[in-house]
């Protein structure tokens, strides 16, 4: 039986602008979801494959034949290369797909995209990083010089979150946030939502998980 993976946001009278609309047509399951701009949503997809396909489609701003995707009101199917690239810069993810680079330490991982693209400045990156680490009670000196293999799962997620906050995307996808974390650690990463909201009041935050059946 076909069933939507997640109820979409209730249609407002004046239709809100959507950050994301996604649909996937499959033999067993249909997935359809819409996320308004500025909202915080938690969606559960039926399996790992659907989750991975969804996150990949959004990050690439590109969809397969059985998918439909709109980002910020723009259908991605027939986008030009430049327009697709511009859309990609508005989206970011905290996901195993966008993991940390193993031969760079935490600071280099956090600052790499900014250093490569030339913005924000490294001083701003340092400030944001310091603030994020303060929120999660991590001492920067010991943390930032360690490579990912020397970090615990929670610390890796915090480093990836700091990198995400530096990029400051309009649409942030957080995939399987609690995977591999203890209950106490889950309580700590729950602060990601508040921190993102504090920094980007108009941003859209989407938590993606697998539905446990």
């Amino acid at each position: 039986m076909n069933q939507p993976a997640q109820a979409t946001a209730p249609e407002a009278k004046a239709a809100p602008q959507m950050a994301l609309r996604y649909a996937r047509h499959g033999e067993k399951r249909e997935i359809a979801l819409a996320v308004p701009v500025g909202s915080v949503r938690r969606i559960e997809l039926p399996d790992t494959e659907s989750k991975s396909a969804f996150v990949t489609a959004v990050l690439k701003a590109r969809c397969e034949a059985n998918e439909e995707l709109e980002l910020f009101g723009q259908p991605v199917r027939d986008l030009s290369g430049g327009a697709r690239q511009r859309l990609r810069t508005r989206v970011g993810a905290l996901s195993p797909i966008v993991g940390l680079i193993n031969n760079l330490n935490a600071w280099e991982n956090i600052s790499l995209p900014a250093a490569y693209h030339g913005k924000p400045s490294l001083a701003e990156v340092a400030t944001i990083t310091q603030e994020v680490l303060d929120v999660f009670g991590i001492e920067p000196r010991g943390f930032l010089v360690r490579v990912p293999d020397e970090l615990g799962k929670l610390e890796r997620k915090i480093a990836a979150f700091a990198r995400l906050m530096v990029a400051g995307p309009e649409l942030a996808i957080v995939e399987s946030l609690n995977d591999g974390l203890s209950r106490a650690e889950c309580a700590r990463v729950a602060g990601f939502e508040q921190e993102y909201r504090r920094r980007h009041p108009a941003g859209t935050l989407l938590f993606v998980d697998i539905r446990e059946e």
Partner: protein
Amino acid sequence: MLRALREIEGGVKLSLNAAGRLGTLRKPPILESFLRQVYFTGVTASTGVVLRASLLGVLIIAITMDVLDADVDMAVKILLLVVFREVGPLAAAVVIILRSGTAMSAEMAMMRISGQTRALRYLGINLYDYLVVPRVAGVMVATLALTFYIQFLAVAGGLLLSPFIIEATFMELASRLFDLFTPVDFYYSIIKSLLFGFAVSACCCYHGLNPPDLTQNAVPKVVTRAVTQCAMLVLTINAVFAYIVFGILFFGLVKATV
């Protein structure tokens, strides 16, 4: 056959892309990666070659004078020819292939297999800019530096230590060396070592970024392929380059001073 053609095509594309993007070295993380490559490839490799390179010069002079019954003039000529034109760049290339080529291809294959190259793409970072350009440029500079280092040590070692085993003074050997040295030897070894560095790094990057499959088992296959092809490339470039520059019968470009 088809795979070989694909590899050649891929290697040429990668080389052209890397050469065309050298300007990105100005970006701070790429410059940092370049300097790191120069350090690991050139500086750390240099310590192991001191004694060997010094003894190389002594061996060449001693063997030439003893076995070939040559005079000082001939021994120094052979030292120059062998060390400057052939052994210096070749020895540097071998050190680079064994030390850095293996590490570079394995590191890049691991990055590809573990999805880190994909992560870089999602972060909007061009793989050529961040992974290929600094490695290619860094290995070229390191090969050149290592070549000079080996040449200097071999010639200096030959001049300093040979008087202990042959009947010639340091001054005799040194004066003959300066008489016989021509700028061609210098330019020849510069261009050749840069070409060696480019070929080795481009080949290792190509194989690292294109493993046969995305499992851990692919890493040793990548390293084996990269090292084998690097060695073949270096030997081929050496032969072709020597033929072009010193093939006076066919090209008449430079008169070999033998």
